[in-house]
């Protein structure tokens, strides 16, 4: 395959970042925006072309005779050589998930580029300060995220992992004069950095044992279908398998070191994907401009953790303890985030918690995936949900952006009854809600149904748990929907224009994403993305997914979703006293949910009281007073001693003669004594 296009996919956003970053201030806002959008558009076309080639060209480098999809290394350049084996390379790996992610990232990124042309200006059409910078950062983010998904080795992934973290930092803190945005960006960076520490140690352990960073070698052997890829070093791959099969591997605190490595790597994923207890940065990250939330904190960067686990999935399969941890973390996070989402006032925060909850679905799905059950259905379901979620969650966020832009507040208490004022946004938001709630035939239904099926195949307990969470999802989304668009008539404050739909640059992405959210569920993912590249269906047509449904699971989940929506309708469609009655019935639960179970306070306590108060400050004191004090004491003692012996140097020559005389006599005497 030609390397020009893959290189361009990465090079264009990078160039755009450097170019807009250096010269942006010299050009007009509009030119910068158009340049950025066109650049992203080009990348979009190239990425679609690449993904199309990968999935549908049928070339024998992408698919073998048995119809199994292969991993294909487009290029791989040495970047930094540590030792003979451990080499960081920068490359471009094409396989089902990276091709899928190319599509997701470029689509959402392009939509956001386009949308921001309208969003990042006020009602008079004046562009916001730093508009060019915004596009530069968006390009940087796109570059980093694309580099992350196509990484052929875990270290390249780590490199771009850090870069997406930094671009997320820059974009969350875009309104840098606002203290809350500054602290949110700081928090996001530090929390994910902490998780990355685990990731790094995991990488170090894993690479030390296996002697390689390359995904192809780490994951190919257990996957029979991918073993035939010519670019794999079979020797290393066999060695990796040998290491994992070796039950006598060194253990640490009761678990094998390899399990620890995988759990630590998952910790990195927990940080980026906002799993409990490292989720606290994501709700605050909503301080960034809304398009950024749609791109980074809903559709792409936050699923990097899921992507990471999916990438290393064959390794996780060999250490099932790690997968069990993933299930537990995911399931708890899903429930927690869904409960919190039911009580928040800020629409972006509701969406943020909903994102956390949905990503947790993907994690659980990966955790319950086993090759024995429907060819690793959970893996496929997770990636499918990642895809559909990216679309409908970006849609929801962009709708939220349109609402915020129209109303000038994030708070739904200032919205209410907007359905007549903003019809397009209303429909788009409704589609998004239906998709996330899992109503047939919208995108979320299919992917969520696959996840629940996978859970069902793994354990009934987690199936019931996740179904309940799915019901909660439907409830809080429709609560939000009704509170924004129904509840009561909208009252426009004095001196304001009535809210209305936004310009075409903002509306067009909404329409496109709505359409995608309606039809994305029919994409035959089972034939495109599976854990070992083996297709699930013999043949595909438009209704493959529908035909493949396990109706016993699907009907239950549909019923749950409809019941939840019904409940939300009863409670929130018209202004009434039911919600406050509900709240008063369970005041403690409501308060805890409203305060997000006091996680922020807990972290505040840990960082400010313990780390700053009990470690840093005492250390600084210790440094000043004990260590430096010792050094100063040396000087002081020397000074004091010199003060004491100074009078001997009286300047009276007669004294000196005395000293001399006494000394000379003593010496003479001693010598004499010795001689005698």
């Amino acid at each position: 395959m030609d390397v020009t296009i893959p290189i361009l996919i990465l090079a264009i956003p990078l160039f755009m970042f450097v170019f807009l970053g250096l010269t942006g201030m010299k050009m007009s806002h509009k030119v910068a925006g158009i340049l950025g959008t066109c650049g992203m558009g080009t990348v979009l076309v190239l990425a679609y072309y690449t993904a199309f080639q990968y999935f549908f060209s049928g070339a024998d480098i992408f698919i073998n005779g048995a119809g199994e999809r292969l991993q294909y290394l487009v290029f791989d350049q040495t970047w930094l050589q540590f030792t003979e084996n451990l080499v960081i390379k920068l490359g471009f790996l094409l396989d089902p998930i990276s091709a899928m992610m190319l599509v997701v990232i470029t689509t959402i990124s392009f939509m956001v580029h386009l949308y921001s042309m309208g969003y990042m200006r006020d009602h008079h059409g004046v562009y916001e300060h730093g508009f060019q910078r915004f596009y530069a950062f968006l390009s940087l983010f796109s570059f980093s995220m694309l580099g992350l998904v196509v990484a052929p080795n875990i270290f390249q992934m780590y490199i771009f992992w850090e870069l997406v973290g930094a671009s997320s930092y820059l974009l969350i803190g875009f309104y840098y004069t606002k203290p809350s945005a500054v602290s949110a960006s700081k928090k996001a960076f530090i929390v994910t950095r902490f998780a990355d520490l685990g990731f790094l140690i995991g990488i170090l352990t894993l690479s030390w044992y296996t002697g390689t960073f390359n995904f192809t070698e780490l994951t190919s052997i257990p996957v029979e279908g991918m073993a035939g890829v010519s670019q794999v070093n079979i020797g290393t791959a066999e060695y990796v398998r040998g290491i994992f099969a070796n039950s006598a591997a060194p253990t640490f605190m009761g678990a094998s070191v390899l399990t620890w490595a995988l759990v630590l790597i998952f910790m990195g994923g927990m940080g980026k994907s906002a799993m409990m207890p490292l989720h606290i940065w994501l709700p605050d990250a909503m301080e960034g401009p809304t398009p950024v939330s749609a791109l980074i904190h809903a559709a792409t960067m936050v699923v990097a953790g899921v992507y990471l686990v999916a990438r290393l999935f064959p390794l996780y399969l060999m250490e099932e303890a790690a997968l069990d941890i993933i299930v537990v973390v995911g399931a708890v996070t899903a429930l927690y985030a869904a409960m919190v989402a039911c009580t928040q006032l800020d629409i972006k925060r509701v969406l943020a918690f909903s994102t956390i909850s949905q990503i947790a679905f993907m994690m659980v799905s990966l955790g319950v995936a086993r090759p024995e059950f429907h060819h690793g259905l959970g893996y496929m379901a997770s990636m499918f949900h990642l895809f559909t979620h990216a679309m409908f969650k970006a849609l929801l966020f962009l709708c939220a952006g349109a609402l915020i832009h129209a109303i000038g507040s994030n708070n739904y208490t200032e919205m209410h009854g907007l359905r007549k004022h903003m019809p397009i946004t209303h429909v788009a938001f409704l589609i998004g809600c239906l998709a996330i709630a899992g109503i047939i035939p919208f995108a979320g239904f299919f992917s969520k149904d696959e996840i629940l099926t996978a859970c069902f195949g793994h354990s009934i307990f987690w199936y019931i748990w996740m179904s309940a969470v799915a019901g909660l999802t439907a409830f809080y989304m429709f609560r939000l929907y009704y509170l924004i668009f129904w509840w009561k008539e909208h009252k426009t404050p004095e001196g304001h224009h009535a809210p209305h739909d936004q310009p075409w640059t903002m509306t067009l992405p909404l329409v496109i994403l709505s359409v995608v959210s309606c039809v994305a569920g029919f994409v035959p993912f089972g034939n495109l993305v599976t854990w070992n590249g083996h297709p699930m269906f013999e043949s595909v047509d438009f209704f493959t997914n529908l035909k493949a449904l396990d109706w016993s699971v699907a009907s239950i989940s549909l019923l749950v979703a409809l019941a939840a929506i019904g409940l939300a309708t009863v409670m929130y469609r018209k202004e009434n006293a039911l919600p406050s009655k509900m709240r008063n019935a369970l005041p403690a639960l409501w308060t805890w949910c409203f305060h997000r179970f006091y996680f922020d306070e807990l972290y505040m306590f840990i960082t400010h009281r313990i780390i700053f108060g009990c470690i840093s400050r005492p250390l600084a004191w210790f440094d000043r007073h004990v260590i430096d004090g010792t050094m100063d004491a040396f000087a002081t003692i020397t000074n004091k001693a010199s003060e004491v012996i100074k009078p001997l140097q009286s300047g009276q020559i007669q004294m000196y003669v005395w000293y001399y005389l006494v000394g000379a006599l003593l010496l003479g005497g001693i010598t004499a004594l010795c001689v005698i």
Partner: protein
Amino acid sequence: MFSNILIYFVVVPVIMLAGLGFCRNIKQIRAVAVTGSVALLGLSAYVLAEYLAIRATGNTEPMLFTGSWSWFEPLHINLAVGVDGISIAMLILSSIIVFAGSFASWTIQQPKEFFLWLILLSTGVFGFFISVDLFTMFMFYEVALIPMYLLIGVWGSGRKNYSAMKLTLMLMGGSAFLMLGLIGIYYHSAPEGGQLTWNILEIAKYDAIPHGWQQFLFPMTFVGFGVLGAMFPFHTWSPDGHASAPTAVSMLHAGVLMKLGGYGCFRVAIYLMPYAAKELSFIFLILTGISVVYGAFCACVKTDLKYINAYSSVSHCGLVLFAILMLNSTAMTGAIMQMLSHGLMTALFFALIGMIYGRTHTRDITQMGGMMQIMPYLSVCYVIAGMASLGLPGLSGFVAEMTIFVGSFKAGMAEYLAGAGSLKLVFTIIACCSIVITAVYILRVVGKLLFGPVYDDHHRTLTDATWWERFSTVTLILCVAAIGCFPNFFNNLINTTFTPEIFRVLGM
């Protein structure tokens, strides 16, 4: 003698000193300083190219461009020079920082005297890096230290007398240990009956220092150089010294002079006494491991910009010594990379702090805020420096830290599996934690200083960077980015040092 290219690293500064003598006004002084530093930059680039060309022919001599001229025959003191990949990396670093430093002190008071001492200091630095004779090395080391006293004492700010005295005395105290160690090495440099020598290459070749003596001399030299490398608990000169020093001096000091410590630890302590290095490294591993996190934690609560960066230097330089002690080639490569990276990025930091201080006349971050709105250029540079410091990929800090961690982890695991304890492993993990703490203090400063609303309305009238300030910072940023984007070039350069000779000596 003058046919050896390396000698010009000392000759050029001496000519600059002579040239300064004839200068009548600040323009001429600037001309001399800039011409000289460009010449040094060119010289190091030339040496680099020549060096790589010779290595490409398969030459695996431990040092190239060697030369030796007798200086004091009865004690076998020679002026012996020679370079390998590590020295060349250091020479490049020094010349870049001298270059940037000349621009950063564009408007200094009493320029003639200032540049006189500054150039004398750089003479010492360059001389140190090209020397392979322990005695001349030590002599250049002292030449580099003494001007520091005057530079801080005369041109400094704050408690400058105290700081200058403290810095000089602590470093002198270190060199007392060092001198003792060096003389000890000299008297055991050759096998019984052989001719004693100060030449590092010959000492390493004979490998004749008795093990008992090594255990005494290794701590002497390691502590001697470690003081300059800001090793816990001998680091306290660094915060005060940096805080009081003028901009260019802070740059040179943190950027180059602290590297003398790391370089010396490698070149003298470990290279000449590999046995003791293996036996005693655990003591210093603990000390340097503590430096790494300790410096970072201290930096978290300081409010003076220079103190924050000085403690950050303690942390980063601790990592250098830490990696050197791992005694494996990956970690050592990382250590040298970290020296380069830290040198450039700290120089950038101190340059920026000097520029900000020159405008606001305060370095207290609680007294400033919203600089991004007032001086966007300097603020963006500060963010870039911060990102380099916290290890953002694409800038130099990341590659250095990663190389160190991979190398130390390898050493740690090897030790652990050999049943020799888990000290290295534990301290590697502790050192890894510093990446989080670094993020905390860097982002704290960035958030308080650059972002947020403007704290003091008087600051609104301040101007952004002038052309020479831009020049100085851009040079450094480009270098930081160059290392970050193309690390393998530097990696290969440093790896040329690890010739069979070194592997034999170190038993790696």
